[in-house]
């Protein structure tokens, strides 16, 4: 596979059960047979060939999914995955091995395999464990899986009924509720010892609208580090997502061709923050900058955006999809300023890049699962609010595009070119939002695009909790956010003139 870095709206993946204590590590000792002695032996074995550092990452994930399709509950599934990854660092080298069998023999064998990245006598000892202090950004409670199934079923049925009732042109409705509960225990030879229990849930609605020969799709959904109750009432109800998906599909039935060429572009609040994820986020991950393969390499302290632009990555927001009490290397997450008033401030780093670059560790080391090597990743990435009223922003545009929903985006880290694909957009003519247009991809250059931000709204919003980020074949949940903004020029890839 070519190197690919992107974000997209997640298809349902993901769960809950009845473990109720904030003592996250207990599960591993009581249910999976982990002992302090075993951890020490594995780390000792991992360092036996002369590595500088070793860590163990034990993970247990349970996931469930239930879906309604054509008003029938066609699918219900659940899954269990348990395993441990052993990593050894030796200079710039990483050795990695994993096992889905937590018996002492298999764990020691994995440690032995990972150790072989180094060659020499043992030089490091395992430090005494220091438990990382973590916040509680999300709940870890939940009723038992079986008892919840009926309630999850009710959620997807509510979505189905609402979407069908929205408009007679809605001919297909699929709604899925998916959740997971991920437990992790990370122990490093440097004494870092951390554990966490991470819930993740989402509700998705997909519809097809048809009128004559004209057919269109609509999708909506939301979630976060939440439990079932958060979807039953409040902001993330199935009714809201169902109406939103149906509204988009019906709207698209009447969409005209999107324009083609360079023009003024206004991006709505929330999920259009995909722009930031692609234009600057990936390019600021420290691994690319350590290797000088990013278009942003060497630009710290330089102007990479309009002075109205401040962008942060914040892993510490309550209940957000991209949030983590602790990263996958056992370090506390934080709020990191990436761009402040247009000036590039910093990178997102993990242990390896922080050590090799001599910069602070921002707690950004993440991995898809125990089968994967951690690397610097985003959490929730967003632009801070400015002072403009959203209405004034629209009113200032003579002829342009107003894009409010996106499918996803992608970036080439090295040359900085990025795209993001609008799924709901409108023409702006003489300061007014007019005809809905068909989907179109927008394209730009990361270190340049944000210099054209001329207005920043006062309406910062985070996305609904739907983003999944891909990097080198690893997927992790993330969030994005943005206020309404205006870019004085950007290329819009429609078919019209």
């Amino acid at each position, binding site marked *: 596979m070519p*190197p690919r870095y992107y974000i997209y709206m997640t298809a349902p993946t993901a769960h809950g059960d009845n473990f109720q204590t904030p003592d996250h590590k207990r599960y591993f000792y009581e249910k999976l047979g982990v002992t302090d002695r075993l951890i020490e032996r594995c780390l000792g074995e991992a360092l036996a060939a002369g590595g500088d550092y070793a860590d163990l990452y034990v993970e247990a994930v349970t996931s469930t999914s239930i879906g309604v399709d054509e008003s029938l*509950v066609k*699918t219900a599934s659940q899954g269990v995955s348990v395993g441990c990854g052993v990593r050894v660092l030796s200079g710039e080298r990483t050795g990695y091995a*994993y096992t889905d069998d937590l018996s002492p023999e298999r764990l020691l064998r994995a440690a032995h*395999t990972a150790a*072989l*990245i180094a060659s020499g006598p043992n030089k490091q000892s395992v430090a005494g464990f220091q438990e990382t202090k973590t916040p509680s950004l999300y709940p870890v409670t939940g009723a038992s899986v079986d008892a919840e199934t009926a309630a999850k079923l009710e959620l997807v049925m509510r979505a189905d009924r609402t979407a069908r009732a929205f408009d007679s042109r809605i001919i297909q409705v699929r709604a899925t509720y998916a959740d997971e509960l991920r437990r992790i225990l990370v122990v490093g030879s440097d004494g870092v010892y951390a554990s966490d229990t991470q819930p993740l849930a989402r509700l998705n609605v997909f519809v097809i609208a*048809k009128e004559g020969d004209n*057919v269109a799709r609509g999708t909506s959904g939301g979630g976060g580090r939440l439990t079932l109750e958060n979807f039953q009432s409040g902001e993330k109800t199935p009714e809201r997502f169902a109406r939103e998906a149906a509204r988009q599909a019906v709207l698209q039935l009447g969409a005209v061709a999107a324009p083609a060429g360079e023009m003024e572009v206004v991006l709505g609040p929330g999920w259009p923050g995909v722009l930031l994820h692609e234009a600057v986020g990936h390019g600021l991950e420290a691994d690319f900058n350590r290797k000088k393969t990013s278009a942003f390499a060497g630009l710290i302290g330089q102007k990479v955006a309009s002075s109205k632009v401040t962008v942060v990555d914040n892993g510490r927001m309550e209940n957000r999809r991209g949030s983590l009490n602790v990263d996958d290397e056992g370090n506390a997450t934080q709020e990191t300023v990436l761009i402040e008033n247009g000036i590039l401030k910093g990178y997102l780093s993990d242990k390896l890049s922080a050590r090799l670059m001599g910069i602070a560790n921002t707690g950004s080391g993440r991995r898809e699962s125990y089968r994967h090597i951690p690397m610097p990743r985003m959490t929730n990435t967003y632009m801070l609010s400015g002072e403009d009223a959203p209405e004034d922003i629209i009113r200032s545009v003579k002829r342009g595009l107003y894009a409010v929903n996106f499918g996803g985006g992608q970036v080439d880290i090295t040359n900085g070119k990025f795209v993001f694909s609008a799924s709901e957009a409108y023409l702006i003519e003489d300061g007014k939002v007019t005809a809905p247009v068909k989907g179109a991809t927008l394209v730009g250059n990361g270190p340049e695009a944000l210099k054209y931000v001329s207005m920043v709204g006062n309406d910062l919003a985070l996305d609904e909790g739907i983003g999944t980020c891909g990097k080198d074949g690893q997927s992790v949940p993330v969030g994005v956010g943005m206020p309404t903004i205006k870019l004085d020029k950007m290329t819009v*890839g429609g078919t019209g003139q």
Partner: protein
Amino acid sequence: MATNNAVVEKSDLAQLATDVLSKALQAGASDAEVVISEGDEFSTLVRLGQVETLKESGSRALGLHVYFGQRSATTSTSDFSAEGVERLVHGAVELARVTSEDPFAGLPDASEFGSAPGDQGLYFDDVYSLPVEERIAMARRAEEAALSVDTRMQNSDGASFDVATGLKVLANSRGFVGEYRRSYCGFSVAPIAQDGNGMQRDWWYTNARTLKNLESPEEVGREAARRTLRRLGARRVPTQRATVVFSPEIARSIMGNVLAAADGDAIYRSASFFNGMLEKEVAGSNITIIDDGTLMLPGGVGGFGTTPFDGEGLPTRRKAIVERGVLKNYLLNTYTARKLNMHSTGNASRGLAGAAGIGAGNFYLEPGTLTPEQLIGEVQSGLYVTETMGFGVNLVTGDYSQGASGLWIENGELAYPVEEITIAGNLKEMYRNISGIANDLVFRSAGACPTIRVEGMMIAGA
């Protein structure tokens, strides 16, 4: 080098699969299906001559699909202990209680089961015969070859060497038990070139089921360098309507959308622009697209998408999806075939969790007679696309809008590199506007396509 995917004796995992089936039936299921996958992976990344990562491991997982009449549910686990299996079966039985009666749900009829005959050449044990040091050396040679082409080749995202083998077992309560083992090896290199205008990265690769069929590291490295260097100094072009020539890699994704649009699941939902188009003209008469789950590559080696049976235990087969521009077949599994009152085309795909999906085997566009140079030579002014980016393909409407980079064609020659532009059109029209197909069909993955030329696409740029 031994090659044998005909599994003579039932493996321990096939035995485990039948044991799990029995437990599901004992728990009251009327039918059940079990899939087990087991695999080993090795990968190493060399960057600027130094080993950066070395990864080696194996894992396995078990998936269960139970039916209670026409209700069904699925569970999966990585825990193969008696307790783990107990939890798997219990979980599936409990979940199935809440699902609906679906009149189209259920296992295929026993008469449909089977495997494609003969040795398909899927497994070659030589992939693990190369010592780790030599795998590292291959990656290092590929990178070195790329970086030594030109002084502008100054950095690298690294070169990797990967090896994987996997065993897949499928068994169901209507009597099907099958298994096959597959091997894979390959390496790739992603060098970075730099000049006064900035940096560019590209990549190239080789992969195969056996070491014997890998290209040389030097060839791969030089090709990666050629692809990277030609991007340096890329500029934008003005917004215009123009002819677009797609390189084989991008043509494969354009033609892959034919397979996605012919997917039975999208068809029965009216979620495809091919809906209702069976036996009708959907492309120019120069277009013939084949899906073949039994494809053999030269030397007795199975294609990258070749398997003896599909995800439901039906034999894989060869069929035309589009023949001389006419849509001849949808891709169907048992469920979608029943929905459409048709027969499965042996295209069920089966992951661990969830019901069977749909997937192509090996697909390809039948090649033409012109060389790629001739195809480009006929273009006065147009775009040669070597990369696309984005999520701008809508299979419901056919609308297509993607970021692109490549080379501008002037008077039949590749003139200069371009980037930061988009190409847009509608797939329904694009398939009818293919004015040329080259003869350069090479299977580097399950799907393959020669260079193609499409008239009248919208390019948005400066």
